[in-house]
């Protein structure tokens, strides 16, 4: 299991390759799911996204969410990378990857990780545009998404 909280960009292709190589070497995985979150352009209105986090708590919260995924599903491996700081449109914000013997587990675990990272890991997004900046409001739908697990 790899968990990284960092301001530096990460290479989605290289991370995906490395994750895949590690689980295929072991041979038990038949399915890998990755999710990558990007800063949307929103028609040019957004000039940057600033992501604040709670150092110390962030790593612990992500580890607890990943541990819960490992308890719930039959997984060969889990990866979570989440950035903070100032990001330009098109930049990768974060990624998760799950490996499992079967595809249903890999998909369910990846969606679970995303739902919980969204609402239970201490990150806050601020959108910075030409007309000023605004904290992204949490959506009721994101809180509701937790109820399905």
């Amino acid at each position, binding site marked *: 299991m790899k968990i990284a909280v960092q301001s530096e960009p990460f290479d989605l292709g290289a991370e995906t390759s490395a994750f895949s190589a590690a689980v295929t070497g072991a041979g038990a995985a038949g399915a890998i799911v990755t999710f990558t*979150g990007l800063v949307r352009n929103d028609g040019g209105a957004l000039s940057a996204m600033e*992501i*604040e*986090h*709670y150092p*110390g*708590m962030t790593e*612990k*919260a992500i580890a607890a969410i990943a541990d819960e995924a490992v308890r719930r599903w039959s997984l060969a491996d889990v990866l979570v990378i*989440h950035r903070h700081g100032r990001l330009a449109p098109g930049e990768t*914000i*974060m990624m998760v990857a799950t490996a499992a013997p079967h595809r249903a587990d890999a998909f369910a675990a990846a969606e679970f990780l*995303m739902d919980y*990272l*969204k*609402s*239970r*890991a*201490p*990150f*806050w*997004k*601020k959108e910075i545009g030409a007309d000023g900046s605004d*904290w*992204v*409001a*949490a959506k009721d739908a*994101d*809180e509701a998404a937790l109820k399905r697990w």
Partner: protein
Amino acid sequence: MIDVLYFAWVRERIGLPREKVETSAATVADLIDQLRAREDRYAAAFADLSALRVALDQELSSFDAPLSGVREVAFFPPMTGG
């Protein structure tokens, strides 16, 4: 003495990211009452508790949780990661 941390717009409204607070508050709610009484910027930050979350020693908690033994309290809006 307890470390109190603020994030996102809570930090912006109060004007600082963290401070040490001398308190004998029994619960988070008591601590909030004490902070609200300090200055308008605190009253503004804590005006609507439904828009706030609290973590005690880096674990999500609730406003009626006891503060005994707690070293670090953090206040912030609902999280928007992912």
